[in-house]
């Protein structure tokens, strides 16, 4: 028995990739095994834990619930693509480090991708909203205490940077990039 393979082109973190995969290959496995982007982690393979979350056209998406072949034509961002090209960390990455928002780090890429997207729509969340924002991702180490803090801190960093940037605070407002 052999299965049919498909040549696919994926746009990941701004770069074009090609892979040859069977139709059943999960996007998570394709990213990790075919493209070598192992920052996306697989925690349950049934869409509950959120560790494998990537951004598909900006929206947080569980890559274990999507086939690689269906990801063609979409813009995918993984944890490896969150930092600026010059290596400057994304505010969410900085906030997680500052607030001790991770311990073993396995679930962290999923949180980072989720929160990076959330803050673009909700630049100034309350603590309760921050907790809600990460409410679809499992973490077994932190008890979520410092993750919630990190969401709030990331929002603060974004606002600080927007205020410091040319053009002022408007840049951090809702609707940016969406």
């Amino acid at each position, binding site marked *: 028995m052999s299965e049919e393979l498909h040549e696919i082109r994926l746009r990941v973190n701004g770069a074009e990739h090609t892979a040859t995969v069977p139709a059943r290959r999960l996007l998570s496995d394709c990213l990790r095994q075919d493209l070598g982007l192992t920052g996306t982690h697989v*925690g*349950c393979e049934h869409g509950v*834990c959120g560790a494998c979350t990537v951004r598909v056209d900006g929206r947080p998406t569980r890559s274990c619930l999507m086939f690689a072949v269906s990801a063609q034509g979409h813009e995918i961002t993984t944890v490896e693509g969150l930092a600026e090209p010059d290596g400057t960390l994304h505010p969410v990455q900085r906030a997680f480090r500052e607030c*001790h928002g*991770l311990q073993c*780090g396995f679930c*962290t890429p999923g949180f980072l991708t989720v929160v990076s997207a959330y803050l673009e729509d909700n630049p100034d969340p309350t603590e309760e909203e921050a907790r809600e924002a990460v409410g679809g991702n499992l973490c077994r180490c932190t008890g979520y205490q*410092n993750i919630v803090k990190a969401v709030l801190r990331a929002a603060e960093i974004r606002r600080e940077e927007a205020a410091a940037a040319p053009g002022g605070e408007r840049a951090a407002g809702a609707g940016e990039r969406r």
Partner: protein
Amino acid sequence: MATRMFGMPVQRTEDERLITGKGGYLDDLGAGAYAAAFVRSPHAHARVRDIDVTGALDVEGLVAVYTHEDLSGPMAEPLPLLIPHPAILDGRTPYALAKEYVHYVGEPVVMVVARDRYVAEDAVGRIAVDYETLDPVVGIEAAARAERVVHAGMSDNVAAHLVQEVGDARAAIAAAPNRIELDLDIERSACTPMEGRGVYARWDGRDAMLRLYSSTQTASGVRAAVAAKLGLQLGQVEVVVPDVGGGFGVKIVHPWPEELMVPWAARALGHEVKWAEDRREHFTAAAHERAQRQHVTVGFDDEGRLLGLDVDILHDNGAYLPYGIIVPIVTSTQLLGPYKPGAYRVEFRSLYTTTAIVTPYRGAGRPQGVFAMERTMDAIAAHLGMDRADVRAANFIQPEEMPYDQGLLFQDGRPLIYDSGDYPASLEKIKKLVGWDDFTAYRDAARAEGRKVGIGLACYVEGTGPGPYEGGHVQVETSGKVRVATGLTTQGQGHQTALAQIVADELGVPMSDISVTTGDTRRMPYSVGTFASRGAVMSGSAVALAARRLKEKALRIAADALEADAEDLEIVDGRVQVRGTPSAGIELGTVAVLSNPLRYAFDEASKAATQFTGAADYTRPPVAADDEPGLEGTDFYSPLRSTFASGMHAVVVETDPETAEIRILRYCVVHDCGKLVNPLIVEGQVHGGVAQGVAGALYERMEYDSGGQLLNASFMDFLMPYASEVPKVEIDHLETPSPLNPLGIKGAGEAGVIPGAAVIAAAVEDAEGFAITRMPVSPSELFHLRRRFDKGGIAPLPGAYSRTGEANA
């Protein structure tokens, strides 16, 4: 003087790679490896009649299929019983692949190796195993009744039976003015790290060397076990532990069947092989913990002081006993908490069932022990009409009584002697933090509004940092960079940061110059592992001692070079200098150059160590007889016995009068782990522990049906808390240093989880007015308890506990 790093909330050095996707977890390695998958038993108890692999043979990409028949020598024998104990009556362990019988759903029967995991699982699906099903034994009651027996050749299901006694507890109870009995019950839960187990093996046939990567809590343990099973010398096996996505105890078990089969297959095939556990495998085929039934009989005086305590424990150890009886031993000893029990008798039976094995999960038997003792304290308070905090205070060991000998043997095989602690001070702190004394008014006001609120308190003592030992190796490179290695592994506790903080202070070098390696037998082969909250205590002490050795040597060499007295030297920011005259100094990297007499220069700096430079003392060899080349220090820390951390939790809950939903309004923690190396990390450990405590009290359980099928083996059905379920945690610290180790520290990893079930049961009980004796408690269970209570089936508090066995049974 450089800033002292010990005690500072330093940001973690491991985070940069972990937040950028550059971590290297087990399944991130071995891109070219074959993938393994396992045919696992679908039955809880069965005899394997036949295995037919023919259906799998035409799967393209299949590499190999193995059954027990393919194994020989030690590989065909049962896995080791890791911690033998005289109380073990019949210690059964599994085979790497099932030989004739299977004893739980998920037990590996056939190994498949294929091009990738998809193909391996295709093949798994095409292998037909013919089973003769046998009677399952599920739950403690069935195991104790022994109408059905798990293991052939046994007449009952008792794996181990141990009685420990200090004084004559039964006589003391009989003579006591007050006596009550409690029946308590705790369900199974599990560690459930976000990353499951995983193994990746590379066999180098030319060198006859095995490199094994495992997501484990013990590199040295895996190395010894794999070498023994594969018939290799220890020197032929290297175990490297990559980034580990959480452990919480389950990954201390070794060798797992898969951990043997993967390297065995890699050697047999001459090709890299990898297995990464999936979530369902982790639920069914890793390990669980907690399940116990306890019967407590206690005698006490009218002030609530314990006179005699008699505890009978039935412990479910699952299908096999690879980790021995550590969990029930910990329950029996740590149950005592911060109290003087009077005369104490504890008896446990550890029972086989046809379910997943039971091995330590964060807390490791303590949550059950604390549940027994703290439920007892609350029952005494109810019986006497006393304040629950006062009953506890009446029984505390006082600070001036330290060290305090409980008269028992602890889980490390050493006497249960508490080294230090100040329980009255902790109680004052927790009462203040939660507002204990003002709560009655709050509760009454809430009741007047039709709300049900309750408060609970629970205390614990945790033996941490058990031996036998850990080692540290510290080396200064000629660049001045410092390399630190310790053998134990890390899985999120921030050891790379904490150990670097300790070495930075000891050596006087900046943290940015220090790199720390854990869990790599190439760097530190002598080690035990990461369990029992021992990482910081054991390896922290070991690297401190190793750094002190190195510093002594550095000062000696620098003193020669600077023509100064070593006593007058200090190391500041990586430079050895004369105290008070910082201009007279030498870089630590240069000292490293001088420490290694050279024939051949390899760069500008190393010229200083060659044979024609500088003044030589012709009366001495270049390396003195009692010295050795290189600027490094190795030392080992081996404690006399465990050090005892402690703490108290208080929680306020509100229960919905209609739906019985339980909401935590406040969760307060007072925590004493001696000196804090890094408060940021310690608080993180407490947070995570509390979350698991709340989970075990309100949400998580392993739901086996009577046939031994695990009904909730997925994150859809096993209620692991999200952020919405974990309350905000309020923490206050107390620091009573340990006198046992050079840094005064005690372990912190497990503490947060330990009193969770006890404190939440106490608060729910306080809100409801009747006894809570089973955990976890779900809204539907609470709802039904209320109905029974309303019909008079459960006695109201106080006095409820004197009705033995009726409450909530």
